[in-house]
């Protein structure tokens, strides 16, 4: 840890790249969704405008300390996951602070952001935000089930829970990827990925016109800006997580961007096609096919 300063610099640079890539990725996805609806859709750089406008708002209100800190927790959740996630395999600089923890750390760090968001929404005092949070949490419990099963089956397969070893085991062509060697786990994992991303079949939590927009009902101006920045980072880091686990990690930035785009596109693609689930449907959906896939993944390693 002697060159901690350099590593810090590279991590900040990585964060900058990931943030920008997140925003552009969101712009592209909106464009694609619009094209599916035969609309021209928002320009690709629209997320930048939204962010700047949000940050440039002159007034904002706060319901209390926890409300104020909610978005901060959320952002630190996203940035924290980024910090502990090794981005580029092999390069000592681009693996951020992943020496501090393995897959389990990342798995449980997701809750950090969610808890902060839940508490902030709670402090807002709006009943709809509380309903949104309760739906989000109940949905999250069953999303984690197939994900945990997949991770455990990978851990059994590669006898390790640390990212670097998993990615190392998948190097050397497509046939070495987990997608190839352990398809069941990948299937369960990718179905769980749909839930984590919160796109259409499972977007009941932030559904725009269902209960205003769920938890962030009371958030606005700079708070919403912070939440949107985190959303950008989080989407990229989640897809990097799934990339490292199932699709052989990335040896270069270009490979990372391509793979994350395709992984993220998978959830958007499903989102565009399928309508929204009700809460009990989405909770019990994960206990059907994904669960069985996960169990089979463990049995047939």
């Amino acid at each position, binding site marked *: 840890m002697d060159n901690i300063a350099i590593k810090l610099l590279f991590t900040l640079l990585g964060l900058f790249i990931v943030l920008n890539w997140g925003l552009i990725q969101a712009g592209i996805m909106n464009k694609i969704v619009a094209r599916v609806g035969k609309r021209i859709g928002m320009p690709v750089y629209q997320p930048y405008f939204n962010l700047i406008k949000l940050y440039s708002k002159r007034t904002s209100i706060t319901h209390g300390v926890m409300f104020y800190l909610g978005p901060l927790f959320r952002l630190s959740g996203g940035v924290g996951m980024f910090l502990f996630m090794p981005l580029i395999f092999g390069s000592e600089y681009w693996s951020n602070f992943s020496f501090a923890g393995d897959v389990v750390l990342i798995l449980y760090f997701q809750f950090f952001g969610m808890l902060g968001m839940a508490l902030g929404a709670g402090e*807002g005092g709006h009943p709809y935000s509380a309903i949104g949070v309760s739906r989000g949490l109940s949905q999250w419990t069953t999303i984690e089930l197939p994900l945990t099963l997949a991770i455990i089956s990978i851990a059994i397969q590669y006898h390790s829970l640390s990212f670097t070893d998993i990615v190392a085991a998948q190097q050397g062509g497509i046939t070495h990827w987990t997608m190839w060697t352990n398809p069941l786990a990948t299937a369960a994992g990718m179905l769980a990925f749909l839930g984590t991303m919160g796109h259409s079949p499972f977007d009941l939590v932030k559904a725009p016109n269902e209960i205003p927009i769920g938890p962030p009902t009371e958030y606005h101006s700079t708070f919403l800006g912070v939440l949107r920045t985190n959303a950008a980072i989080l989407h990229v880091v989640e897809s990097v997580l799934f990339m490292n686990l199932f699709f052989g990690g990335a040896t270069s930035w270009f490979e990372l961007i391509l793979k994350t785009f395709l992984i993220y596109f998978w959830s958007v693609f499903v989102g565009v096609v399928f309508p929204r689930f009700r809460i009990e449907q989405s909770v019990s959906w994960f206990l059907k096919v994904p669960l069985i896939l996960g169990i089979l993944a463990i049995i047939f390693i």
Partner: protein
Amino acid sequence: MVAPIYIITIPLGIAFLIGVLGKSNKNIGGMFMLIALACMSFVSAQWFISFMTSTQSPVYIYTAGFKPPFSINLLMGLNEAFFTLIINIATLLGAIYLYNNLKKQGTNAMSVFLGFAMALNVMVMTRDIFNLYVFLEIASVATAGLIILEQGLKSTSAGFKYMIATGIISSILLIGIIFAYNYSGTLNIDGLIEANIGILKGGAIAIFLILIAIVLELKPFPANGWALDVYQGADSGIGAMISAASASASLYVLYKLFAIAGESWYPVIAVLGIITFIASNLFGLKQTNSKRLLGYSSIGQIGLLITVLGLSPYLGDKFEFIAVTLLISHYLAKAILFWISGIVKAENIKNWSNLRKKPLLVALFGTAVFLLLGFPPFPSFFGKWELVMQLANSGQFAWMTAILVGSFFEGIYLFRWFGYTLKLDNKELPEYKMKLNKIIPPAIFGVAAYILGYYSGTFVDAAKGLDYIPLLFIAFIALINFLPAWVKNSISLTGVILYIAVIFPEFDGDLLRQIFAAIFLGGAVLALFAGFYSKGKRSGFHVVTLAMFAGLAMLLKADNLLEIFYAWELMTIGSYFLLIRGKKSMPHGYSYMMFSLGGSYALIFGFALAFVSFGNLDLQSLSGITIYPTLAYSLMLLGFMTKTASFGLHIWLPGAHGEAVVDIHFMASAILLKAGVFGIILVLLGMGTEASYAKYILYTLGWIGAISALIGNIAASFQESAKRLLAWSSIGQLGYIVFGLALMSHLGWMAGIFYTATHFLYKGVLFLTIGGIALKLGTPYMYRMGGLIKKMPFSFIAVLIAIITLSGIPPLVGFAGKWLFYNAIISQGLYFQGIVVLFSGIVAFLYLFRLIYSVFLGQLKDEHRNVKELPLCLLIPIYILIIAIMIISARPDFILKPIGNYLLAYFPSGALNWNGTMASTGLGYWDGYWVMIIVGVMFTLLFGWLLILNSKSKKVKQFNMVYAGEKPFRPETTHMSYNMFSGYNKALGFFMMPGVTGFWNWMSDILHDTANYFRRIYSGNGQSYAIHIIAYIIIIYLIVF
């Protein structure tokens, strides 16, 4: 030494003197009676002491100077001295108790009473069988006379039934005697023994008749209808005399005459006894009349003593000790109970809640109940322990189970009765005055129970290690019960701190005990410190709390099985009294006691098997169990799991903890449940993993842990009351620990022990804060709270930290437990149990958010507008725990390394290897210290950035929110907390079918229905009782010959 003959002559003389005095001057007559009884007890006490201390040899007293065949001789041996002593004391105190009744009846009643006392003494001392018959007859006539004392239809009809029954019994005895004389030629018992007439056909019948008459005198099961009516009909003082004094006399007579019968009789007597014991206790379940229930219980206890008599060949040299302790306990308890029923005069057991008007009576009633059931400080505890050990030693497992099942039934109705007394309201019940002479006898016997308990402890060699200092300290606290709460609190606090200083160095070698000592005693200090919040007297609270903590401390110090069992039972008593304090806690306290009772009986059975297979009682015996090992280990685990409320045995916890007050809730959940964990650790250490059966046990244990974790967490999310939510979550967390221990691997155990420690920390915080808030707001229901973050910021921060730890979110220490579990599950290979545990870990999120949202966030209700922060005496312990959590989170290796080294001794392979603060296993790695720093730095940086961005945002009030252009109506209608996870309930609600409670209810219904069906045979008709007696004789005759 006064000649024993005076024991007979004094009462006879005084009786006639009183008769002479005539009806008028009753007071003098009363005084004379008391003097006579006092002299009798002095004489027998003198002889008893001389036998106990000096080597006094038994003395034969020859009446009229002739040798036996021609005259009646009496013997004053050690046994006779002991029995006459207890009879005389009982009659003396009984006379004091009945002084007014006897005075009201006049001098003839007094002389009848003296006659009754004299007859019992002679029955014990005489060696002549016909003399025995004569005085037996006098005793029964005197009893019949005394029954009439209570003028009333009930007592008269009961007396008449008694007369019929004893008439038949004595005539059969007479026939037996005369035929025995016919064959042996002598009436002297010693002569009969030499004559050994059993071998002759006719002689055997004679002996049969004699013995069956004496057994019938002791009210065996089918033929004891008359006895029940007597107990119900007679005055309670008389009932006390019958059940205490005459029962012991007839028991000794049976023991004396046994020598004649010879070996073949033992099993018969044992069978008769055990049937009576189990049947009468079973019938007691449905009984609601207090005195009749006492009748059932005394008949049951006598049945137990008969069984002990019958099993004497198996009990070896311990027989006297067991018989004496059980007899003494029965004698003291029955006397106390009957005397109390005389004072409170409540027919229905539900009206016994009237007892609470006089706290001393409640204490005595409690002593009697625990004395009867064989709980620690009392002699019957050691008696029952030795009984079970000796029976196991001689391989009589069937007898053991029968005795334990019988005493379990007795426990059921006694604790239900005790629960009614403690909890049902007694506003409209009639007032009653406690006269001095009515209260002295039970008080004396109560104190005698404790003293004899200590004294009988000295006999048992395994009990040498028990230190009685804490018990003395508790007695002292009991005495100062009238002081205000904070005085008692500070005294007991200093006492506990001193005690910690004394015993903590004893554990310095053994880390496991150090951790548990820190949890138990550290928790005790925090709980007592939190106790300062309560105003008023809180009578009885400190006694039972210290009893529980004394039990817990003793559990750690115990080095043999007896001490463990002693500590376990002491802790159960303390925790029972704590849990029963809640307003609506009677049913839950009752079910808690039933589970712990069943659990302790399973434990004692397991310990017996361990004792038998290893030879002695120390802890190593847990490892090498050879006889029925699967049964032994599973029973012991079941026993300990009643305390950790694992799946199947968990239904008592939500109710019991839901009703408890704040510090009791903390003690019960954060500390008490760990005792079970300590027990499981001991058993699992003993069992090891090699044996074939161990695999199955561990597998099922793992599944039980996993399922209880899942059920606990899911059920917790649907609770409306905050306390029940925490109670269910404790079930979940304990399920974690049990699962961790069941993995039997280095990592599994490290996870389990680590979880026990951290669970104490964060659950302690949760219980204290939520309990304090529920107390302050007057309601445990979450939908009535809300928006308290503005009023109670400190408790919010505390609960937030506790929630982050519990859910295992990285920077704080909870994550270490989750990480250990992950590695343990994968390395151990128990994937599916592991998945269930990890899934329930994530489900924990639901109820955590619900707790912190409904209590602190959301809308502040009008009535809580100027609620103040929690009292300081609660905040300080909370923040001590918070600091502890933060320290461990920063440097988790402070705890993990020592646990690792400790576990190396038991599980050498699969340990954590450390470099610096980075812990790594074969699979993954984790560096708590660096995670904490990175997250901390990142958080502060982002916080600074957010401050710059958003420095001037306007603070608004609670209704300034987007409500579709309108404004909300009232805070109550806009706080979303009732039925919060309804969607989740629809999806996964089926988990919550109350299967287990249904099972246990079904079991208890079966018991109660059988009891209700069979007790119909006591039809109340005197004649049918006579037929029962005759039929009983004939059936036994046919069986024996």
